[in-house]
């Protein structure tokens, strides 16, 4: 059984919801990423989404754009991100890690080598924002061969036919983008999520995580009631941005603990 499945099964048994924080690898500094990952787990993260920085992050708002720019300035590369996961796995073999980013850095490395390396270092899932299922055939084949879960986004604009298609291809969990917009924008519409969820559940057996627009503990708590997992990205990256190397792990951990408590209570 995969780490993602074990994690979500266990949560279901405990009647708890997953907390899935996102950080950008290499932000604020390469040496801080692995300590931050451990900090996230200690503070209560169930799954870690690790952002692979890209020069042109078209689906991201200003907060994650700036994080990508900081990371690239530090010389962060996809190979470097994979090495970070290997280092993380020396101490943690339990927490699933999902790489999230854009297709071109993977294309440049080659899907075959990338998928193989993912398996070697202990990556569990890959989410490529700009590769919809229609353009992912090659990517799939390689990911499947190496037991890496392809994670897909669904959006408020996704129609039923596409939900079915994604349901067939997705593994691990499905990430529902709760609003029309880039990461970190707007405010979440809880009633719209509640309305969409039955349509998603009808076709999707996998756990459903919801993200985009979750900025505080109260919202995280409300969203958690509607789905299986809460993804928090820009708010955490913002915490990284306003911290320094000395206090970043403590500050981010404090924020994630608050989110954890809100979701569990």
């Amino acid at each position, binding site marked *: 059984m995969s780490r993602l499945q074990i994690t979500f099964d266990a949560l279901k048994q405990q009647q708890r919801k997953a907390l899935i924080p996102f950080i950008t690898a290499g932000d604020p500094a390469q040496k801080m990423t692995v300590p931050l990952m451990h900090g996230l787990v200690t503070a209560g993260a169930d799954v870690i989404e690790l952002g692979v920085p*890209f*020069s*042109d*992050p*078209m*689906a991201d*708002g*200003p907060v994650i*754009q700036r994080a990508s*720019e900081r990371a*690239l300035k530090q010389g962060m*590369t*996809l*190979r470097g991100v994979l090495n970070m996961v290997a280092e993380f796995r020396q101490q943690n073999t339990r927490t699933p890690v999902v790489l999230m980013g*854009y*297709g*071109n*850095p*993977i*294309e*440049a*490395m080659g899907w075959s080598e990338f998928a193989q390396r993912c398996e070697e270092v202990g990556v569990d899932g890959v989410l490529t*924002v*700009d*590769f*919809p299922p*229609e*353009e992912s055939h090659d990517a799939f084949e390689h990911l499947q061969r190496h037991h890496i879960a392809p994670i*897909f*986004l*669904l*959006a*408020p*604009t*996704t*129609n039923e036919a*596409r939900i079915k298609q994604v349901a067939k291809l997705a593994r691990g969990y499905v990430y529902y*983008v709760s609003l*029309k*917009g*880039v990461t970190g*924008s*707007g405010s979440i519409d809880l009633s719209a999520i509640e309305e969409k969820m039955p349509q998603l559940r009808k076709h999707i057996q996998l756990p459903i995580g919801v993200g985009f627009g979750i900025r505080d503990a109260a919202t995280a708590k409300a969203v958690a009631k509607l789905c299986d997992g809460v993804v928090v990205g820009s708010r955490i990256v913002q915490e990284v941005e306003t911290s320094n190397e000395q206090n970043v792990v403590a500050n981010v951990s404090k924020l994630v603990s608050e989110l954890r408590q809100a979701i569990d209570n």
Partner: protein
Amino acid sequence: MTYNFPDISGHFGQFGGSYMAETLVPAVEELTAQYLRFKDDAEFKAELAYELKHYVGRPSPIYHAKRLSEHLGGAQIYLKREDLNHTGAHKINSAMGQALLAKRMGKKRVIAETGAGMHGVATATVAARFGMECIVYMGAEDIVRQAPNVFRMKLLGATVVPVESGSKTLKDACNEAIRDWVTNVESTFYIFGTAAGPHPYPMMVRDFQCVIGNEAKVQMPEMIGRQPDAVIACVGGGSNAIGLFNPYIEIPEVQIIGVEAGGYGIASGKHAAPLTANAKVGVLHGNRVNLMQDENGQIIETHSISAGLDYPGVGPEHCLLKEIGRAQYVAINDDEAIAAFDALCRFEGIIPALESSHALAHAIKIAPTLAKEKVLLVNLSGRGDKDMNTVAKLKGITL
């Protein structure tokens, strides 16, 4: 071989496709369906033809640049005068077509990215013409380079949003327009400027721009009794070029030459010529194309004196035409483009856009090596009024 691209899913061989975030996938699918529904619709075609004739001023003439040709002492240079269109460039051909489609789709808000500002001006123009709200994204560096066009867009009622991220040029404006579209997908039509991006844009923009080549195919035999020996156009994303080239693909005797921006020279690495430099294939802005990138797949900053060509990718159909050998792609450096700009001003009384000056520069380069009977048709895709500041600065003059 019959040339029939793209396929139903928007692929030009290995190139093109539709690489978009999930939120936008239904929007591009809807756009494809609506475009396919209206493109052969008699009423749509009649309205577009009417607007192109009475508002844009088509057909654009072809002009024999006799003095310049005589000076060069070789092949005859003919110019397809897209610079004489309303708004001063070829961009209006496609902006008009897309606006008419937006109108039929009930979209009241249009957005656009722009580099040199010509597509922004064209979009602001059609938005004013049809009473639509218009937002134009433009790199902060380009706003400085192309100040007159920024003012024009504002006069036409558009909001110009400066883009401060990345290299602050066309690709970043494109990123920001995509972000707007994700956010406002239901109310907004994205009037894309070039024959690139996710399907159906490379096909749709090409189809609207093919008016250039279709006219030329009729005009050249009227003028000289035959088709030209070569058609030449500048290539950034490549919309003016594909509009001229595509109708000529089926005539194998006509050589097709695309001219990319060589910047400081291919060897310098500071250019915007992915095809000439054999850039690796990658994915950006919704399509798979030759793309200027580093070994880690990060997009690298490009350089060209011309803001309209300053882009790391290129339309997928050009990638295919190069791969199958039907078209040839070359690069012209900044200084060669400026020399061509000067030459056209002095010999013909025509001030060309810096983008178009690249195409002209290649014609000037090869004309002397060819016989006097040979005919080169250059797409003069835009006029140079917008480039006064850039050229003056290069010459050390303060306006």
